[in-house]
């Protein structure tokens, strides 16, 4: 069984279309409404799609916590492959079949997507991504091209080894670091860059905190 896990926080504008499109390529779609104050959940309910599993956090706990809930749900469904993607439309669902193909037919244990470098990417984001990838490369000898991209997939068997502790946006980095520390096989797929909202996601302040957190992980992991 292939399951998509989509954490969402105030994504009423895009959640419906993202989940509707993803549902074409997977067996179930687990949506975790992480304490949204808009119509995120209602948009899912209104679709009446039998593939959807809607879970609701009564308060906002953060992306990492939402993904943990999603993982628990995927376990209960007996998922063999989990595909993680964002609810804001930055990750195009039509790439899901390519991701699944890498996992099934090329016997990889994970697929990480990386965003194509394009002029429309904000300069701060380009610099931030470069700095974070470079730091990860130096501290952890990790060579993923885009550690902050949340579009990725894993075989369920590796998930217990990479369960993350971070509850917020750093989950992507922590997941990748834990995965690499176990030497599992993986591949990377290029995806287009889409930015819908400049004021969501990782900010420059988060980036600075992340650099400090990576030093802490270097000691702990």
């Amino acid at each position: 069984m292939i399951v998509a896990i989509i954490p969402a926080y105030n994504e009423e504008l895009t959640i419906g279309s993202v989940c509707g499109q993803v549902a074409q390529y997977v067996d179930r779609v687990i949506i975790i409404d992480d304490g949204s104050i808009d119509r995120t959940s209602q948009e899912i309910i209104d679709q009446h799609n039998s593939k959807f599993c809607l879970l609701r956090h009564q308060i906002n706990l953060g992306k990492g916590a939402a993904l943990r809930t999603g993982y628990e749900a995927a376990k209960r469904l007996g998922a063999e492959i989990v595909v993680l993607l964002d609810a804001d439309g930055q990750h195009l669902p039509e790439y899901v079949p390519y991701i699944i193909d890498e996992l099934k037919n090329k016997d990889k244990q994970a697929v990480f997507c990386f965003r194509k470098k394009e002029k429309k990417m904000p300069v701060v984001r380009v610099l931030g991504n470069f700095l974070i990838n470079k730091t990860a490369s130096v501290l952890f000898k990790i060579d993923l091209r885009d550690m902050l991209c949340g579009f990725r997939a894993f075989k369920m068997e590796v998930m217990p080894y990479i369960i993350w502790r971070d509850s917020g946006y750093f989950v992507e980095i922590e997941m990748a670091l834990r995965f690499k520390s176990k030497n599992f096989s993986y591949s990377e797929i290029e995806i287009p860059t889409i930015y819908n909202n400049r004021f969501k996601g990782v900010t420059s302040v988060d980036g600075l905190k992340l650099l400090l957190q990576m030093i802490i992980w270097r000691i702990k992991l």
Partner: protein
Amino acid sequence: MAPIQLLGLLIGLLALHITFIYYKKSELEKGDLLIWSFIWVVFIFISLNPNILNSVTQHLNLSRPMDAIMIGAFIVLLAVSFHNYVVNKKNKKNIEKIIKELALRDFDQYK
């Protein structure tokens, strides 16, 4: 009485008063009231009689009682920060556990 001693006395009395109000509002228990009242009384006593710290400052090789108070206060703040950090981390974990269980409570309908 030096102005700083007067300030210490006023702060101590205010703190005692606030502690008592919290007790009356049932936000502190009797044991908390007794402990905190004792702390504020000691604070007032030291403010009015700073010379009682002379033996402490001599043993610690400090030149002034104020230095001993500052160092002691810093150590207390560090200890309180550490305690808060541990408690906050535990609470965060427990909150997530409850919210996750609530979210998954009716999950069987999807199986």
